[in-house]
């Protein structure tokens, strides 16, 4: 197994709260890796760490052999040309049409002429099924279409790594199905390494080759989808089954209930 992203002993704090405590995980090349965990566990933060937008407080993130936290600005920007990221909100540039959105990375980072860029953009839009929507503004798109357009933009430069931040959140079953299909197809067709951050159990497990389960700032399990399903770890079981109470308590930590009701401190 060839490792594309290597996270070693990484710790990250936000205002004294530990988001990650000394985690280590590997993302294999050419596979779909799903990083799952309850909301607020810092899954998006992990993607930002991989993209080098924020630096860890200790430990290292290595992407394709480059230590992101020690890279110079230029190295970082060069490395990012080989990465695509699909943000949760799509993050299409609201002052440009869908076509201009997809064309922007090509205009910025390649020497292609306008005709060539136009062809590439139309090909990318065709692959997400939005060629007919090229002239629309982002505000005119539905949520699912915006995410597909953003995906076309993320793969415009034919990246080696695509990161998906909660691609299924808030999508209706049809657009969810479309996205699952697209992610799978991209991965197989172009051999792209995919990292998928999600708390959507079934859809993620259905396409992931490799799964990391995060909880409370640590990796609690890492393996194939089947290994996750068969795990007996109560934390894993609770997450997969969605039990209200379990290792992750239903109650926010509080003082004794009876005592508080009776007014005794």
């Amino acid at each position, binding site marked *: 197994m060839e490792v594309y992203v290597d996270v070693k002993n990484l710790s990250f704090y936000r205002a004294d709260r530990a988001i990650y405590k000394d985690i280590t995980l590997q993302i294999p090349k050419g596979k779909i890796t799903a990083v799952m965990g309850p909301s607020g566990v810092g899954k998006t933060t992990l993607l*930002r760490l991989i*993209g080098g*937008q924020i630096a860890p407080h200790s430990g290292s993130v290595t992407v394709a052999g480059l230590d992101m936290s020690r890279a110079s600005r230029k190295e970082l*920007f*060069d490395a*990012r*040309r080989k*990465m*695509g*990221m699909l*943000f*949760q*909100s799509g*993050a*299409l*540039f*609201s*002052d440009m049409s869908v076509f201009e959105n997809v064309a*922007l*990375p090509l*205009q*910025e*980072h390649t020497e292609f002429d306008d005709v060539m860029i136009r062809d590439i953009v139309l090909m990318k839009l065709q692959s997400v099924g939005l060629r007919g929507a090229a002239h629309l503004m982002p505000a005119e798109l539905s949520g699912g279409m915006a995410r597909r357009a953003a995906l076309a*933009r993320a793969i415009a430069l034919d990246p080696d790594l695509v990161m998906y931040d909660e691609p299924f959140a808030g999508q209706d079953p049809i657009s969810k199905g479309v996205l699952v299909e697209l992610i799978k197809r991209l991965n197989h067709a172009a051999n792209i390494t995919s990292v998928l951050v999600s708390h959507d159990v079934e859809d993620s497990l259905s396409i992931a080759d490799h799964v990391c389960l995060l909880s409370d700032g640590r990796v609690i399990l890492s393996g194939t989808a089947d290994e996750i399903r068969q795990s007996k770890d109560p934390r894993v079981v609770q997450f997969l089954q969605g039990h209200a109470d379990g290792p992750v308590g239903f109650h926010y930590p509080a003082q004794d209930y009876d005592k508080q009701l009776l007014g005794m401190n």
Partner: protein
Amino acid sequence: MKTLYSAIYRHIETVGQAGVFLFQAICRLPVRYDEALKLYFRQIYSVGVLSLIIIIVSGAFIGMVLALQGYSILTRYGSESAVGQLLSLTLLRELGPVVTGLLFAGRAGSALTAEIGLMKTTEQLSSYEMMGIDPLRRVVAPRFLAGVTCMPILAVIFSAVGIWAGMLVSVHWLGVYEGSFWSSMQQSVYFDTDVMNGVIKSLVFAVAVVWIAVYQGYICQPTSEGIGRATTRTVVLGSLAILGLDFLLTAAMFGDF
């Protein structure tokens, strides 16, 4: 005492960060100049052209009010022909740059903060970064430069409209003799000290207001309340900065008498 020190320390730190921010935004050269120019002109449209109506209307009303007030006071001394002098000096030296600055902070400054804040909230700024495109260069620099270009233009238009409207009121309504209206004005207004100092003032105000606006947008909390707070801060801080700077500049320009 300790909290006071740490508060002062924090403020100095903020100013320092804002300075570095501005420096980086301006000094990172664009990759493609035709593209940069296009972005710049687009911003001149949204910062300057869209502020034009409010500037013209306010300029006209302020000019007319000044003419009325000036006339009613000067007529007691039989010097109503000096209304042109009063009108032009007040507008060129003070009201032109200052009122334009305040309106600009309210109209364009708040819009800039909200726009950049919204880009941050919807992850568009992160998106630029992940695409290997510097958002300071792509988003902040054209907005800053366009704002600094537009404000002196708007201030000059404001003064010209104000003087023209004041002329209409005093000459055609109040009956001041047109010849002495212009000659008293031309005799007391100097191009280099009055017209140019007004332009310099508005340029300084522009740098302050637009700097505050883009910085507040860039550092705002990425939530809807965060954007609201940042917008308010832009208008408050921008207006205070204009009034404070105006005192300093006036003292430096006209204070030696």
